């Protein structure tokens, strides 16, 4: 039990937690992850534009939105990075926002790589 919990913490996604939320439906989780990546692609573009024109309200809103979506899919690391982005927007800190956007992109790539080797259902 404790081993599996520790393992979950290392993974970018907590499968047990998210599957519990959606009734154990792995194909539905796949569908949600596709939506997540599609939404991220659009939000990434908007985020880059917002950072370029220092639109902190937009940075804050995008951070808030990504934080919610990540929390719903039990992507705790991404959730924390999105929170940093939201805070950077609220506190009008452009460097912090740029750094959070970069970390976010790295973590997204990490998640994608992880899911390629560990598709939903493998650990269930």
């Amino acid at each position, binding site marked *: 039990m404790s081993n599996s919990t520790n393992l979950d913490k290392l993974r970018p996604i907590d499968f047990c937690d998210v599957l519990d*939320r*959606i*009734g154990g*439906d792995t194909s*539905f989780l796949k*569908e*949600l992850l596709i*939506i*997540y990546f599609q*939404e991220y692609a659009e939000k990434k573009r908007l985020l880059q534009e917002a950072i370029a024109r220092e639109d902190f309200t937009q940075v804050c809103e995008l951070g*808030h*939105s990504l*934080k*919610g*979506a990540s*929390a*719903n*899919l*039990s992507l705790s690391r991404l959730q924390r990075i999105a929170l940093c982005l939201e805070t950077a927007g609220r506190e009008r800190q452009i460097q912090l926002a740029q750094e959070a956007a970069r970390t976010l992109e790295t973590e997204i790539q990490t998640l994608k790589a992880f899911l390629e080797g560990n598709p939903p259902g493998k650990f269930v």
Partner: protein
Amino acid sequence: MKILVAEDDLICSRILQKNIENWGYKAVLARSGQAAWEALQDEELRLSILDWIMPGMDGVEVCRKIRRRKKYKYTYIILLSAKDRKQDIIAGLSSGADDYMTKPVNFLELRARLQTGKRVIDLEDKLLVIQNQLKDIASRDSLTKIWNRAEISKFLSEELERGQREKKPTGVILLDVDYFKKINDFYGHAIGDQALLQVVCRLKRKIRKSDKIGRYGGDEIIIILPNCGLTEIKRVGERLRLSVGKRSIRTELDSVPVTVSAGCATSELPGTASADKLIKIADSVLLKAKGLGRNCVVVAGQELEPLGERKNV
């Protein structure tokens, strides 16, 4: 039962939808406050899950708008938010939400909270049914079940206003059972009641659906006739008189001969702008009908040409 899910985040919305549909509800999705508000114009949507942060109008504003509206049945609202500080929860509930849940949503908890909402709505529906029944009881005469004096006076005021707007006359006929006291004294009140019920029954058969009939006093019946002028009311009054008096009323004791006198007035007459004044004029000509020997009809403004047999019972 339909549930509104107002959530701009697509993933959260899909998860909510899937769970809600698994629990047997029908999910109606909205991705902005404005879309939620438009969906809520459907009166069947009584349960709502509103995200606080949404583009444009937020969940709290939707809550406030729901609570400001009057003609709709109660809508049970669960406000969703990532905001979990005490002051946020207080602000959310103060906007009119019934319940507050923080994200990410625990679905066992949401299911239980939706059941609470459904219980509240079911209870409200039951109370509304009882309220309508009580309102109906309070508006009707307990013996004859026709409208009582307060209700029929209200109808008359409304009808007079409508008549003025549409430039159409409104007629009033006051009918009084001739020698009703004697019927009560001779046969007893139970038979008197039966006779009155039969009189009402006969009158109801002779009026239009749009006409309203009420009990104005002890044995006084009032009929309101929309779009009825002096020419028509004369005919209607006579038809009603004949419908009551043409044959005796059978009661459990005896066959009782019953006639009525009628006083008619319409809003075409001067000084009839209010319900009270119109009734007063009808009442004054009813008195004249009584004075002329009963079992007849007198129309205000045409008192010299009473209709009927003018025979006593």
